[in-house]
């Protein structure tokens, strides 16, 4: 689904657990794309083809998966990062994530080409697409979120969902850190809140008011 000129959202429509994926099309040299969180290759319980469906959906939008130049991973859980290895192996895509998360990813056999620290991430010739990487721990210790100030887009991974938050009971999770991360993200000017999962809602919250309402709901009803 095309959200903006070069930004696509791929909402997971399967039954099993898998993540939403987001794509910045043709932003790198040679018209290569940047994919955020490719998800599972095949989902573990119901064996649904996560990567296959994503490639198919991208194809319908005229986006060739073979042209993925960079895969950005918000964190190292399999439902977000499993297919990154495939993109690296088959298409020569580079894989990026925080150094903290890369240690867990490496234990699953994953290879990271570049680390993403908190700060500016510039994509394209002359850094045309200016993104900000935020360290947003809580769901996992080295979790990152991606903010695109120019278009007011926030890709949240598993920090914030529609009317809920990421779980904190997995290794390295912290409710205190998650709360702080959400407090911080809620102060950003956001028109498109792009969540890591479609839990009871596609996970794409559009409009500043809706985004603010979502943060307010979470702060009042979810965080305590």
């Amino acid at each position: 689904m095309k959200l903006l000129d070069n930004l696509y959202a791929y909402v997971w429509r399967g039954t099993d657990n898998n993540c939403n994926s987001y794509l910045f099309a043709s932003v790198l040299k040679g018209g290569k794309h940047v994919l955020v969180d490719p998800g599972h290759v095949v989902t573990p319980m119901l064996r649904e083809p996560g990567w296959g469906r994503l490639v198919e959906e991208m194809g319908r939008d005229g986006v060739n998966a073979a042209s993925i130049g960079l895969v950005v991973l918000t964190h190292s859980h399999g439902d977000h990062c499993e297919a990154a290895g495939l993109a690296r192996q088959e298409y020569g895509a580079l894989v990026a994530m925080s150094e903290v998360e890369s240690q867990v990813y490496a234990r699953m056999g994953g290879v990271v080409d570049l680390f993403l620290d908190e700060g500016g991430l510039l994509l394209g010739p002359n850094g045309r697409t200016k993104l900000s990487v935020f360290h947003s721990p809580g769901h996992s210790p080295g979790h990152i979120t991606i903010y695109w100030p120019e278009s007011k887009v926030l890709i949240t991974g598993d920090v914030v969902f529609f009317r809920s938050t990421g779980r904190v009971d997995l290794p390295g999770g912290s409710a205190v850190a998650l709360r702080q991360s959400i407090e911080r993200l809620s102060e950003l000017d956001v028109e498109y809140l792009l969540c890591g999962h479609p839990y009871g809602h596609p996970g794409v919250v559009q409009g500043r008011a809706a985004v603010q309402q979502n943060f307010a709901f979470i702060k009042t009803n979810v965080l305590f």
Partner: protein
Amino acid sequence: MGEDRIKSAREIATERLANMPGLTPEELREQREKEYAPRGTAIARRYLQGTLRSGELSAELERYQGQEAEVVKRALLTTLCDSITSGDCDTSLKALDGIAALAGEADLTGIRREVESLAAEHEERLRERRSVIERREKKKLSELGISGPAVRPNVSEGQEWLKESSQLQAAFGERAGAIRKSLLALFGL
């Protein structure tokens, strides 16, 4: 009739043992080494892992006597000496502290300085090389259209870094080896 009775397994084993020649001094030495050297190594490991303090090493050795004690002490000192490398200053200095605790009057100040300066030099060279490779990798990424302060190439995974660091390791390893040799010589090992 008593001579015809069937012998027990114990009797057969005792008879066979009585007919076997005794162990040679060399075999006895080997047996002692096999049994007691691992105990010295274990004491060293416990010390390096922080379970024992340097002041407790002598007390550990006092549990053994005679030739057994010599074997344990030699293994302990050898393991501590082997832990002195150019790449891990903290462990090297800890090993040196352990050696000093067993060295009696021997002055290890000079060797300590040597270990510190070797480790610092190794670290500095690694940092320099890493920074050169990192700059080069950043440039490559920038040419692909990936740049900005958030971007830090994962140099450690690259072949270039693996090659450079192992070359440095070999060069500094030789110097660390010389330090280890001089320490072992100090104890007549």
